[in-house]
């Protein structure tokens, strides 16, 4: 996957570049709008990460310009502003996404994956998810581990489904709140943790290898990797 990273803060650029490379992207970096334009026209990118505050132009103008130049790749917008302005909202409706700084790396990666998935429809969605010996039947809303049916509430099923879809990858608490409960809030209490503990109590029975692992300070990961 080729990724164009447009970020003028060199500190942030370098740490993003190495993290993204570690995640398997081929990263080209630009620190201003002009360079980004040249790079985008020269090469073909699957996805773009654009910071809004660039020294020579507004990030939105850059994106609009690139669109005019025929760049079709989805864009993830990084914004230092907390409140997202309407123009970003407009772009978001056009299929792009945004993330406000500071963000968890795991969330950046998850959003990039989402954007790429959205951009390349892959036929029919699977009706079953399988992670090791855990199996989710999405049609019957039923989860089994080693053939044994798990007694989950519907909310717990949604949570487990989200973890399964991101199996092997870190999901943060705010990602879980966003995707499972549809809330973009920063919980300063352990509301998510308690749900995870309960789910873990049902999924990871006695004598079974724990499937749901906690990464302190970051979030959770399902399955081994």
């Amino acid at each position: 996957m080729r990724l164009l990273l447009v970020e003028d803060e060199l500190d942030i650029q370098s740490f993003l570049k190495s993290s993204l490379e570690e995640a398997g992207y081929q990263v080209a970096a630009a620190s201003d709008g002009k360079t980004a334009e040249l790079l985008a026209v020269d090469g073909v990118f699957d996805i773009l990460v654009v910071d809004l505050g660039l020294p020579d132009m507004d990030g939105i103008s850059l994106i609009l310009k690139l669109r005019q130049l025929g760049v079709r790749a989805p864009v993830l917008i990084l914004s230092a502003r907390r409140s997202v302005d309407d123009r970003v909202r407009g772009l978001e409706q056009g299929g792009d996404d945004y993330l406000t700084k500071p963000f968890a790396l795991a969330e950046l990666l998850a959003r990039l994956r989402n954007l790429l998935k959205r951009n390349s429809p892959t036929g029919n969605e699977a009706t079953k998810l399988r992670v090791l010996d855990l199996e989710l039947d999405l049609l019957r809303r039923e989860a089994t581990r080693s053939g044994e049916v798990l007694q989950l509430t519907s909310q717990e099923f949604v949570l487990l489904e989200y973890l399964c879809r991101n199996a092997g990858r870190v999901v943060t608490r705010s990602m879980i709140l966003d995707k499972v409960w549809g809330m973009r809030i920063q919980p300063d209490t352990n509301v998510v943790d308690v749900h995870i503990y309960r789910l873990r109590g049902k999924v990871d029975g006695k004598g079974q290898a724990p499937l749901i692992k906690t990464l302190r300070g970051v979030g959770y990961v399902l399955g081994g990797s």
Partner: protein
Amino acid sequence: MFSAEARPLLHSAAWRISAWAALAYALGTLIVFVSLHLYVASDIERRDDAWLTGEVEVLGDVAERTPKGALYQRVVEEVAELASHEVPNRVAGESAPKDAVFFLETDTQGKLVIWVGPGKSDPFLDQLRPSHAGNDAPFTIQTMGFSLPYRVVRTHIDDGSTIYLGLSDRDQLRVLHMFRLRFALLWGLLVLFGFAIVFATTRRMLGRVLSISEAAARIDQNDLSARVPASLRKDEIGQLAQTLNRMLDRIEAAMHQLHTITGALAHDLRSPLTAVRGNLELSLTAAEGATRQEAIIVCMEELDRLVDFLNTALDVAEAKADALRLNREPIELDQMLRSMAELYEPSMNERGLTLRLECTEPIQITGDLALLHRLFANLLNNEMVHLSTGHAVTMRLWREGQLVRFSMEDNGAGFAADVLERVFEQRVRGAGSKGHGLGLAFVDAVARAHGGTVHAANGRSGGARILFTLPAQSGQGTD
């Protein structure tokens, strides 16, 4: 700084105001006088004319009835003489001056028959001859050798002769002159008096304003505790002083709040930053991998908290400045609360708390979903942090006409009395609270941005109660 003495009197506002007031007053009284004068003058003339007409009729009668002969002249002269003693407008006691009245009779050819009057009759005859026109209205003549004009009335008697009776305008002019003189004196006094009163009052008034402005000038950043002198009087200037003092109260309170906030802010930023720095150092020097990892994790948690704190602080600040941007959309509030209750219930149960939601009907509002999520998350977090084990939280949502009401009540210890009054202010937190003191300030800010209100009280059972009211359709807002 100015003082009353250093300010030249001629440049003071009091002087200008009184000068203009005196001018207006003088002009007004002058107009009144001029119209009075015109009226008096015309009235005196009318009375003179009436007297002249009456007298000339008497003289005409006498002249007609008295047989023309040696006695005729004497009789008429006698009557004319008598008439001159009854001249109107005369000052009592003063003897009749010789030139007050004249009597003149001419025959058909216009030749002089009788002359009773001052000096020679010729200059009068010269003046009267040209005015032999028909009508007998009183008229005025100016005679050579006499400085004052005469008012003259004539009558024709049957034998063809004409009788003229003239009255000097001297008495009339003297009355008017006295009138003018007295008025001028009175007028001058009145204007002076008016000026003095206006000047004294405005000077006193403006003196109070000046003392207020001097006192206000003495109040600077270092000493906000001073107040301008407030008089007990409820007039405009008293109000000005009171308004200024109230404004100063608010400024002082705001400054005090600012000092408190910056102090608390410094503390809130400094402690996590210290923790981050220390833990990062530890992660560099620690030999054991687990210790290193733990230190870094602590840093991330501290930073997350810091970001959350900054976001909330900025939201509250924006909302206070009415700059909170709402992204309004229709919201099923009952469903939203149900899913929030579902999210929070397990962790509340972990703490030995119970959570209940009472709502019997679907309730839809227009609002900013993300902000409302955070608002309710804030309220629920508060309950989790402050409520001790074994208590219950009840949320109720209901509709009341055009209003949607939400209440959250617990059966805990309630708000402390000193906190309750200021619970929605920034940086106010209960004793022992580990929060940043922004939670309820944020709730208040979001409620107001949605056109709603929020109240805090202690319920009947003594527990804390938050009542949140929103217009059912808040879509008519600015955004």
